[in-house]
């Protein structure tokens, strides 16, 4: 088969190109694409902000900027990923308000002191919104009702311990009322429930309810900002209504603590230029994201202040997230049921065993199961190798070994398929789809 030799020849060419591409690193920063890590799902406000700053900042850096979503655990997963990234400036974290809350809430030992801020991009206040059909026209009426019906008023939020939840907790304390806080999987879910009148109010940002306010489906009772919002000139602030509460989220870019000064300088300049482009400002306005710029030093001061105030708020005060005792109830229920079913199965098997008095037929094929075990071990080794010697070598090694182990003996086929697969996967994932693979080399 001459075509196979020809094919493998063709496969070599992109591989060589790829290798030469790797060789020419080590010039000035940034010499390769930068990645912004977002600790929230694609489609949310933080994600939108990251994607538009990435788009507009790629020109000043002269590099592509990718966005990587690592959602989960109310942002805890992404933030810890960002903090543990290599401090070379190529992984930039989009930090949000929630970063301040993990340590005081006892979730993990990570706070703003683990990051070096670059720029702040955004600031959005919290707001209390009710359904348009509800009787409450002002914040005072709403709070009076809440005081009279302690614990009966439900307030939806975007997730336990998230910034809007804390806003509602602060309000509760200041107004001397008691709400039932209902956490949802994101602000959109909470707003949908309010639209269906399943909640009395939601505590989310004005941007997340704006369209329903314009349609007249919902009514915003007040924003926790220092001044009225330009999009909502009719809605008073909390201060105007006699409650001294300013609360909101902020978002900005940061890098791990050990990142060198020179790199931080370059990042600050580049992202500032991105921030100032009309395109970014326009996108932010359309997505209703409040713009707020602070440079690295100002952002650092601000973060220290925020961290301090959140710590004070959440530790040693009665302002804790009331946890029910039912956290372990479901796992326990499932565990018990699992145990019961297992017990029944064991009894049944034992009875059958006694009846027929012979071992089940599955046990007989131990030699072939050994091959499955070998395959399992091979995969574990492959997985581990991929992160030590890199994608290219480990995949080649794995494929060639596996082909030979499974009885393939033609060198032509082995080389074609292993090289072809390595390159095809690289091209499809990395080049076309831009999905990061593990590092090419160790």
């Amino acid at each position, binding site marked *: 088969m001459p075509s196979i030799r020809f094919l493998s020849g063709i496969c070599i060419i992109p591989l060589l190109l790829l290798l030469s591409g790797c060789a020419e690193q080590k010039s000035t920063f940034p010499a390769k694409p930068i990645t912004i890590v977002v600790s929230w799902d694609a*489609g949310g406000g933080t994600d939108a902000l990251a994607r538009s700053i990435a788009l507009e900042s790629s020109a000043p850096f002269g590099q592509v900027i990718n966005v990587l979503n690592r959602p989960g655990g109310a942002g*805890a997963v992404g933030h810890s990923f960002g903090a543990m990234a290599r401090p070379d400036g190529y992984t930039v974290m989009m930090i949000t308000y929630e970063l301040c809350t993990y340590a005081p809430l006892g979730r993990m030992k990570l706070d703003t002191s683990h990051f070096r801020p670059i720029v702040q991009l955004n600031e959005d206040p919290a707001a209390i919104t009710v359904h348009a059909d509800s009787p409450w026209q002002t914040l005072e009426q709403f709070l009076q009702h809440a005081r009279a019906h302690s614990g009966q008023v439900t307030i939806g939020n975007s997730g336990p311990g998230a910034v809007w939840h804390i806003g509602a907790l602060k309000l509760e304390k200041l107004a001397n009322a008691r709400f039932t806080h209902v*956490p949802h999987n994101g602000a959109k879910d909470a707003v949908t429930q309010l639209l269906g009148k399943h909640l009395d109010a939601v505590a989310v940002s004005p941007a997340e309810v704006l369209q329903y306010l314009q349609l007249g489906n919902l009514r915003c009772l007040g924003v926790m900002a220092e001044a009225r919002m330009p999009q909502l000139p009719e809605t008073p602030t909390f201060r105007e209504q006699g409650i001294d509460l300013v609360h909101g989220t902020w978002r900005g870019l940061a890098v791990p603590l050990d990142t060198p000064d020179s790199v931080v300088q370059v990042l600050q300049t580049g992202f500032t230029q991105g921030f100032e482009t009309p395109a970014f400002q326009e*996108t932010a306005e359309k997505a209703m994201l409040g713009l707020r710029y602070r440079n690295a030093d100002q952002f650092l001061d601000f973060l220290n202040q925020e961290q301090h105030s959140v710590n004070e708020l959440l530790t040693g005060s009665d302002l804790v997230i009331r946890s029910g005792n039912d956290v372990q109830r*479901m796992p326990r229920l499932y565990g018990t049921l699992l145990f019961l079913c297992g017990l029944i199965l064991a009894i049944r098997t034992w009875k059958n065993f006694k009846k027929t008095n012979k071992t089940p037929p599955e046990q007989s094929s131990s030699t072939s*199961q050994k091959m*499955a075990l070998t395959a399992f071990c091979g995969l574990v080794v492959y997985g581990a190798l991929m992160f030590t010697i890199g994608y290219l070598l480990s995949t080649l090694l794995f494929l060639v070994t596996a082909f030979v182990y499974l009885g393939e003996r033609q060198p032509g086929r082995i080389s074609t398929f292993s090289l072809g697969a390595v390159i095809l996967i690289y091209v499809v994932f990395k080049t076309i789809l831009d999905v990061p693979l593990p590092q090419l080399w160790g």
Partner: protein
Amino acid sequence: METILTNIALGFDPSYLLLLLTGVLGGIMIGALPGLTATMGVTLLMPFTLGMGLSPQGSMAMLIGIYVGAIYGGSITAILIATPGTPASAATLLDGYPLTQRGEGGKAIAWATVASFIGGLVGTFILIFLSPQLSRFGLQFSSPEYFALAVFGLSMIISISGGDVLKGLIAGFFGLFLATIGLDPINGTPRFCFGRVELYEGIGFIPVLIGLYAFAQVFEDISQKTAFHSPVTKLNLSFPALKETLRYWSSFVRSSLLGTTIGALPGAGCDIAAFVGYNEAKRFSKHPEQFGHGNPEGIISPEAAKSGATAGAMIPMMTLGVPGDAVTAVMLNGLIIQGLQPGPLLFRDHAEVVYPIFVFILLANVFTCVTGLLSTRWLARIVLINKSILLPLICVLSVIGAYAIRFSLFDVFVAIGMGAVGYGMRCWGFPASPIVLALILGPMAESNLRRALMLPEAGISLFFTRPISGVLLVLAIVSIAWGLFRQPKTRTRASVE
């Protein structure tokens, strides 16, 4: 009327059609690769469409193409190599892969393609004509209703258990238990995380899927080395006859309607729709014992349901500005960045975007169908590839897929570990699909139950006095009773085989 026609004609603009076709082809590829999901495809291409300066119609054409293509593409690998490309395809695998093993993979794909097309068609017509009614129905769903829906879904564990209900239940409770790992949804307290932040977001669904199906299948194939070199003796490349397909018309219609309705609920998507479609087909079938052994209805029903659900998910997005699932959440954001606010005003102010979107969904299904049918004959030949070549390639693709979903080494080992679990389960006759179902529905059941119990008027009676949740719970109880009652017949048959 005339403006409506002009707006519809706008959707047929050649440049949009080209974008749509590109999206469909790219989507099928993304869907077919394990680990790359529709959500990921749409998210990745969103900034791209914005960066190219596409009009809202252009970018929607491409994104809808990817969405529809990816949801369909997941089934190709599910049917051919027992690796569901997207979670929604896990139900198709149950009857699709047995057909491939019999050498009738081509037929299976053809059925999946046609079912997907019809589901999409029905879904689109419902989207066009019944959107306001369905979205109002969706708004009635609160925590008690979603809890009841999850329980109804979990009652399916009995019917997808194969021969042995007890083993199915064990797999199901194991899955439910796995689903509780991570930060709990109401208080945010870590559960079973052992201080590892990777576990905070829970055990990844895709890595488990890859492990239970792809790796377990590889291990099983390797351990049966005798069947290695002539896997399939005769390859049947003929298309199913029209008459044969028409016999299943009730499955097509039922699943499409069910799928669209479930898709239209803001809290339920394609994956749940596919399993419900499968289960209802089995319930109404005259031969429920053939399910799991390559019954065409077991392919048609989940395919029609999940395809209907893609159109259904657009309903709350377009009418309320509320996403129907994760993919439409990303699309919604894209529309907002383009300066359009989905919701009731969209129909009044931006009809020039709304009507082309209808056209795109319809045509995306047509393109998917044509592409699918044209490539069937070639794809079905995959079984002719020598297993000593195919299996290592599946392994590499699965490892990369498990990594790519969250870029985490941890997930790779979760997948490999679940592969060992899945292989063990196969050896001892435990079904894998209850785990998948439990992972989809477990978090939904728990968070909504606890949320419902927080309500001031809470109590067990709440779930039965609210009409929708009451009906769903009664259905779930009937479904469990029916399953246990019907089961002995199938069990004797299974033990005979």
